[in-house]
């Protein structure tokens, strides 16, 4: 029963995101001053560690949201659950009704897209 409800909720949310999403590309020009500064700091300082500063956390969450907007709802779900919430591939498969290989492919693709989007930002920034 719980699994069934979870699957329905997941699919409903995916449909909502699918209808609402525009998937714009994240470009440097759209970044706020805080976001640009945050990115620069992360590149120079290194990205390890939790954000203790509330402002930093807000900036990071906003940037993450914009980064995820560039992904398809399915890729976004896989990435958020596996990389963000440390869910296992089988958990995501059970929750979405996808096969485990599909979950892996989605997560791989999402990581690649997110990394490439950030690479573009970092490349443009350094130019």
């Amino acid at each position: 029963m719980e699994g069934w409800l979870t699957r329905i909720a997941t699919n409903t949310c995916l449909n909502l995101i699918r209808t609402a999403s525009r998937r714009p590309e994240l470009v440097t020009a759209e970044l706020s001053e805080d976001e640009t500064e945050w990115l620069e700091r992360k590149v120079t300082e290194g990205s390890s560690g939790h954000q203790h500063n509330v402002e930093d956390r807000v900036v990071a969450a906003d940037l993450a949201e914009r980064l995820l907007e560039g992904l398809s709802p399915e890729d976004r779900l896989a990435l958020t659950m596996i990389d963000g919430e440390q869910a296992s591939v089988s958990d995501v498969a059970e929750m979405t009704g996808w096969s485990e290989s599909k979950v892996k492919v989605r997560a791989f693709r999402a990581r690649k897209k997110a990394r490439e989007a950030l690479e573009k930002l970092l490349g443009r920034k350094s130019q």
Partner: protein
Amino acid sequence: MRDNHITEMLDSKPFASLSETELATIRTHVAGCASCSQAYDAAQISALLIKERADEAVENSLNANPFFQTRVMAAWRERQEQSVSALRRLWNATGALVTTMAATTAALAVLTFVAPSSDTTSQTTAALVPYSAESVVLDQNDNDQVTDDQVLSAIYSDDDEGR
């Protein structure tokens, strides 16, 4: 090397799940490859951003309004009622037509299946009656047949009477 080695390692699993050996391999490669270095930075930042977002989502859910569940359930019930009323509206619009069609179908079914069966009963009763046309013509009783002698006597008796 870059396209089919380091980036694939970076994308194959969550950054936090990379083992020490894998990280050492990546760092060694990154030291001599500028483009991979950028990919490594991007992967690290991407992992951090996603983790931050997930943590914030968890915190938000902990600080969520205690009436959240009540509101969700109320919204769900409202949606269900809407779907039920939509069905009712559909029935109001098409109910008469559907009923007429159902009645017509039932009448046709009666005419198709019940009426021919009454014909067969009449055939059955006809078959039970012993005096059918065939039985009259073909099943004539042997007792009714006249013998040759009787025929001859009947013919010649008239002649005899004439004389």
